[in-house]
């Protein structure tokens, strides 16, 4: 009830104050936001599944409006709130309505010197301290899947690889005319999770995340930066006497220089992490102690070459991440396999839990996570086994190469990413896994090739992951997965496109799934045999007002085929309409 009252007050305060805005007396309040209409109808392909107990079809939809209100009560101060109004499809006259405050923030500049933000923050540091890595499977250019990707990112606040956190942040900088050019400082304190009542007498502790950065531009070519971040629990904020500490320090040196036709950048970075659980305020005046203590480091050398006419970009590097390197801010995954499918969570007449397919992972935003995790989250080796935690994946050592090239008119755009990594130590055996990653894509812009005014393009990509471990039969591993994506877009009238795409995912081999306890320690390896094929065929149409403003209607045929007897094959169809408007 208090929440409703607060909502009312907020809305009254904000909206009534707007009248002065709208009468054009000042520009102290301004609006932007986002609106979306979504409708999806899913249907079982009954010829492919022996399932007579699930509904033949399921439809749902909604309209939502996220109204962002920016209030500038004084110069250099802004109060921001995002109010969500959501209405379910099929609910009439107020039923199925959701009104909520989605974001609330104040920011400004103190005394024209220190920039600060309080409330909802979107924070990022280095790739090994605080970084929200892209989820697997979505790095493809596929305009039929992009609307889903937009929803996943928007609903989960994935914004430029930042984590959405709530707290306080401040930064300021200095400029110098000798010795060094500038010095930037940045600090934040946030609370990724508040204290919660577990039962009548037990409360969990708050989890706090604090950090700071110092960046120094030594000269035109050299930047030295250092980051510190710490995820910790103040024990007194809960009733448990065990609390985590996970400080990470890193330092990097960036050297760049320009020539007439190209630009070269070299980055050397390294860091160390600690993680342990502190046992404090113990009974019988037992002194504080720690447990599950780990300490690790990482090292990376990255060399980037890029032509100034943007026709070629090439980066080559070496990375080493210690098996015990732990950084909650950089190793938390977006995809959380503890979730279940939203559509048809069970299938077959035995009501089996339906294993997720690439279509589920590409289209369902509820699979994704917004909370920082203090331990390594589980991952599915089928979809991502080489770098499941991004560049910060522990226990990896190897080289990588990323290249991008296009001709001057961008008729052809090609990308190649490859990586060859090896485990630093073996898991459960002395033998180490070897990993190979190959990803290539080619986009052909036929409209540029043929001098057409309307767009016509074809995009083809392929990604393969190979994981191998030699040794005895019982511990050897050989897993191969491949994801092929083909998509075509044809603009048949101004801004109006016909689209089609096909995705094929194959995975076969064997792996071990790692089970960990609450403190991240490995407790068991479960051998898993994988042999599955997945497909997503999509056809649709798109009217594109501009980027992030479009109407998309498409039909998807998708399914999964297993060779293993543990699972039943399935096929489903979906009709989806998404009208997305960035206000």
């Amino acid at each position: 009830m208090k929440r409703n009252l607060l909502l009312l007050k907020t809305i009254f305060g904000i909206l009534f104050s707007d009248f002065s805005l709208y009468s054009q007396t000042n520009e102290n309040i301004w609006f932007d936001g986002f609106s979306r209409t979504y409708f999806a109808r899913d249907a079982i392909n009954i010829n492919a599944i022996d399932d007579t107990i699930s509904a033949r079809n399921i439809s749902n939809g909604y309209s939502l409006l996220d109204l962002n209100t920016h209030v500038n009560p004084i110069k250099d101060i802004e109060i921001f709130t995002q109010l969500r109004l959501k209405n379910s499809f099929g609910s009439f006259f107020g039923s199925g309505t959701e009104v909520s405050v989605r974001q609330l923030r104040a920011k400004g500049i103190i005394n024209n010197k220190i920039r600060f933000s309080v409330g909802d923050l979107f924070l990022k540091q280095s790739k090994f301290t605080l970084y929200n890595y892209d989820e697997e499977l979505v790095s493809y250019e596929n305009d039929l899947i992009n609307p889903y990707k937009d929803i996943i990112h928007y609903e989960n606040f994935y914004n430029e690889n930042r984590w959405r956190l709530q707290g306080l942040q401040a930064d300021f900088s200095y400029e110098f005319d000798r010795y060094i050019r500038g010095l930037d400082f940045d600090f934040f304190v946030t609370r990724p999770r508040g204290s919660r009542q577990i039962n009548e007498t037990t409360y969990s502790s708050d989890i706090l995340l604090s950090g700071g950065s110092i960046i120094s531009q030594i000269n035109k070519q050299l930047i030295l930066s250092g980051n510190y971040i710490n995820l910790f629990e103040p024990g007194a904020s809960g009733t448990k006497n065990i609390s985590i500490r996970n400080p990470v320090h890193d330092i990097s040196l960036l050297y760049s220089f320009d020539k007439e036709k190209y630009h070269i950048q070299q980055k050397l970075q390294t860091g160390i992490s600690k993680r342990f659980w502190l046992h404090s305020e113990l009974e019988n005046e037992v002194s504080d102690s720690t447990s599950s203590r780990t300490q690790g480091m990482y090292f990376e050398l990255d060399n980037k070459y890029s032509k100034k006419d943007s026709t070629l970009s090439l980066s080559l590097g070496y990375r080493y991440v210690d098996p015990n390197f732990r950084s909650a801010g950089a190793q938390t995954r977006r995809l959380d396999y503890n979730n279940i499918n939203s559509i048809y969570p069970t299938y077959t007449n035995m009501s089996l839990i339906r294993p997720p397919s690439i279509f589920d992972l590409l289209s369902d935003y509820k699979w994704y996570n917004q909370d920082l995790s203090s331990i390594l989250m589980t991952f599915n080796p089928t979809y991502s086994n080489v770098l499941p935690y991004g560049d910060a994946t522990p226990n990896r050592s190897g080289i990588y190469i990323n290249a991008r090239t296009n001709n001057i008119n961008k008729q052809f755009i090609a990308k190649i990413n490859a990586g060859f990594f090896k485990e630093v130590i073996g898991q459960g055996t002395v033998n180490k896994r070897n990993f190979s990653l190959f990803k290539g894509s080619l986009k052909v812009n036929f409209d540029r090739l043929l001098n057409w005014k309307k767009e016509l393009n074809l995009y083809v990509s392929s990604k393969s992951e190979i994981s191998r471990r030699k040794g005895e039969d019982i511990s050897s591993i050989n897993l191969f997965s491949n994801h092929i994506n083909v998509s075509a877009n044809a603009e048949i009238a101004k801004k109006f496109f016909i689209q089609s795409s096909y995705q094929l995912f194959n995975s076969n081999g064997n792996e071990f799934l790692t089970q960990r306890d609450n403190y991240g320690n490995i407790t068991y390896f479960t051998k898993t045999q994988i042999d599955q094929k997945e497909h997503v065929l999509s056809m649709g149409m798109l009217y594109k007002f501009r980027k992030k403003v479009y109407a998309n209607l498409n039909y998807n045929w998708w399914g999964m085929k297993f060779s293993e007897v543990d699972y039943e094959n399935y096929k489903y169809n979906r009709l989806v309409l998404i009208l997305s408007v960035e206000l």
Partner: protein
Amino acid sequence: MRRSFLIIFFMSGLSILGQDTIVEQKPFSSNILSFKNPSSSISFSGYYRFLGFVRNQQETFPNNSGKTLVISSGDAYREPMFLLKIIGKTRDNINFGADLMMNSLYKGPSPEYTQDLTLNLGLNLAASINTNNGIFNLRAGGVSWYRQSRLTVWGNRSFNRISIYERRPQTPLNKIPINRYSRYYDSGLVDQGIRYGSRAFQGVFLKGSDLPFNFTTKGVIGKSNFNRSSLETSDNFTGSLQIKNSLNNSTKIAYNYLNSWTDTDSLSDKNRSYFIHTLELEKTWNKLRFQMELGLGNYHDPIQKLGYGEAIILNIKTDKSSKLPLNFQYYRITSQFVNVTGNFLNTSVLEVFPNIEGVGTTIRTPYQSPIVGLGYPVNNRQGASINADISIGRLKLNGGVGVFAEIDTSYSSLSYIHNVNSQTLSRIYLFAQDWGPYNALNSTYRGVFENVNISDTTLDGLANFKKFFNTIEFQTKYNNKIFGKNYYIFSLTRLNTSQNELKVLPQIGSQTLISQFSEEIDFSIELNEKSTFVLSYGLEKILGNASTDIGDSPKASSTNTFFEKLGLKNFYRYSNSRNQKNTLFGFGFDYKIGDNAMIFLRCNQYTYYDPNFIENYLKGWETMLELKINF
């Protein structure tokens, strides 16, 4: 000393920063940087509407809880006390809108009475796309109000012969109070808001105008408020499409299509569906306008397949500038022609009304051979009516007469919508079905209809005869001045009857299954520019014959006590069947307290009485104080 130097050093740096860094450069920040990028425009409108309500029941139904006095605030029919409409337009000319509804019960500060913030209708997104081949408007979301053709999608709209004593929340405020009555006198129209004459839909709407060869098109796919399933995710949709062509300035032709389908079993492909194809023709000759819609419909569900049925609505009317404006209507809609979103009542298939708790009752219309006024077509029925307007000085007369017949025999029952006290009765038990001591009353949105059983049935339980319906409506409007102030008198007389024989005119007597007579007189006078005094009197008499329900009173009652007292035996009879008498006497004030702000007071005494159904007796007072402020 070193520390002092460091402080000075850093402070001097900060001052440089203040001048240059934050404003012009972008130093490292772990946080995201945002830039001012406002939407093109957002505006707000809406209203505050307080409705204070007191009802004191002097006579109640026997199953009343014992509570006879009701004091409440807010409109019981889920209407906003505070409506805030957000209307915006992006730089891509995409319109978006939402309407927030905020209510308060004013029942004390206890948190249990706090009302949730909610949406009145919903959210809408609308975009307009201009091309060389036409302008296309795409709208998504809803609720949106949609209208297409009378047989496909059209809100209930008749001849505007109503008493305007009672107000509706959507009724706009006039510049001065008396204008509400002067407009009704002048044009016969009362603005009931955009929803009037349209149907509520959610979904995707597409409209194409300025298309080649004078074509226009519009359509919707989504849900009307009748598309409600107990399993929300099951298929339950309506799609509708119109393609229209203007052959010339006086001739228009249109094709309409509607399809509504509902899964009856989520585990199979069984569904209930109906579809309609219609052709519309509109032609104007000088002072004569001809409108016709001709359709073919088909209904099926897992149990019955009704097959194809035809429908026609024909309307010929003369121009209003004629000496005697006439309007002739003919319609024939077969029982196979099923639709719940058109401008006719469905009476042949009960299952198309949603049967979900809390939903079905709010939108179910009378379906058991309803006795309705002119301008309300019904399926499984055909008939004609003629309406005319005439002005004699300040006296304006309009009226109509109609005769209608069922095409096939139907339910062994009838239903009639109360003309007097309809809102009052519906407020006693909101959106309830089969209530009252005899389970005959049904409350809808601001109205009540009552079911009547017929005893003369076939073995199948249907009526043993076709029912025939006659209607006469007559309205007089008069305006003059007294002491320099305008006053208006509106009188509305309606007589509806149903019998088992075809008759040209309504019948009153023992051969008539049900006869419903009502007289409503409204008087309004301008006290000054800011205030108007209103009076209303309503009388409704409903009589049934021996083939309808028999009351529980052991003694037959006279159908007209006045003539009984005078001893005019030809004008009354004794009956044990329905012998209802409803009366309403009300007075009120309309007062303007400022621009876009008015107060309305209504005080009514009502009675609902039937001497043969001894428990059908209601009597009491209602007082309503409405404050409405638009912005």
